[in-house]
């Protein structure tokens, strides 16, 4: 995992409560450099918002507020 991804992952983990308080469920939030850089009600609107701030790139970290991201999963194939 890249250090940038680790930084964004850590920022997301530590700000889950803040995200729930600031944004409605399902809202999309983008992180870069461990900081929130854009948010929007849909993925496509977020893409537009990222383009406005010059950050429409695949290495930007995006999560949805209120969605459960499990720490661990078990896969049977």
């Amino acid at each position: 995992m890249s250090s940038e991804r680790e930084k964004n992952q850590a920022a997301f983990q530590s700000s889950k409560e803040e995200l729930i308080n600031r944004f409605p469920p399902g809202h999309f939030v983008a992180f870069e450099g461990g900081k929130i850089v854009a948010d929007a009600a849909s993925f496509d609107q977020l893409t537009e918002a990222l383009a406005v701030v010059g950050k429409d790139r695949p290495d930007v970290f995006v999560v949805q507020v209120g969605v459960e991201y499990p720490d661990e999963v078990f896969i049977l194939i």
Partner: protein
Amino acid sequence: MPGTPSEQRTIYKGVPARAWLRLQLISANDRIHELEFVVDTGNPCAIIIDTATMQALQWRESSSTNSNFGSLEGGWLRVVIPELGFDEKTLGYANDAVVNVVKRSRPEFAGLVGLPMLRMVEFGGNGGSFWVRSPTVH
């Protein structure tokens, strides 16, 4: 016929035979990759692909998680099922070990699709085939 759900139906294949479906993954610069995926309703991830494919196709990075196959690196993918008119940005994961196991059934398989993906459509199977359909409007 109006009201008839559209459908993708596939004949089980691989050794051992596996349920599978065909998805288009479309990159941010509109490159279309049509790939075949084993279907497993017990898989808690919408879609798992190899790391090279994720690097080529992801629209954004996302939250990663641990698994019995190692780290699953999250990424947003544009997933299209043309027969259904399905076109959604979907949270997927990259893990080469999972894909290598899937390929033992059939080398052409590109990864694994799980229940979160299937719940966005309707799905089913019988003795000979597996299908996904556009959701029924009630």
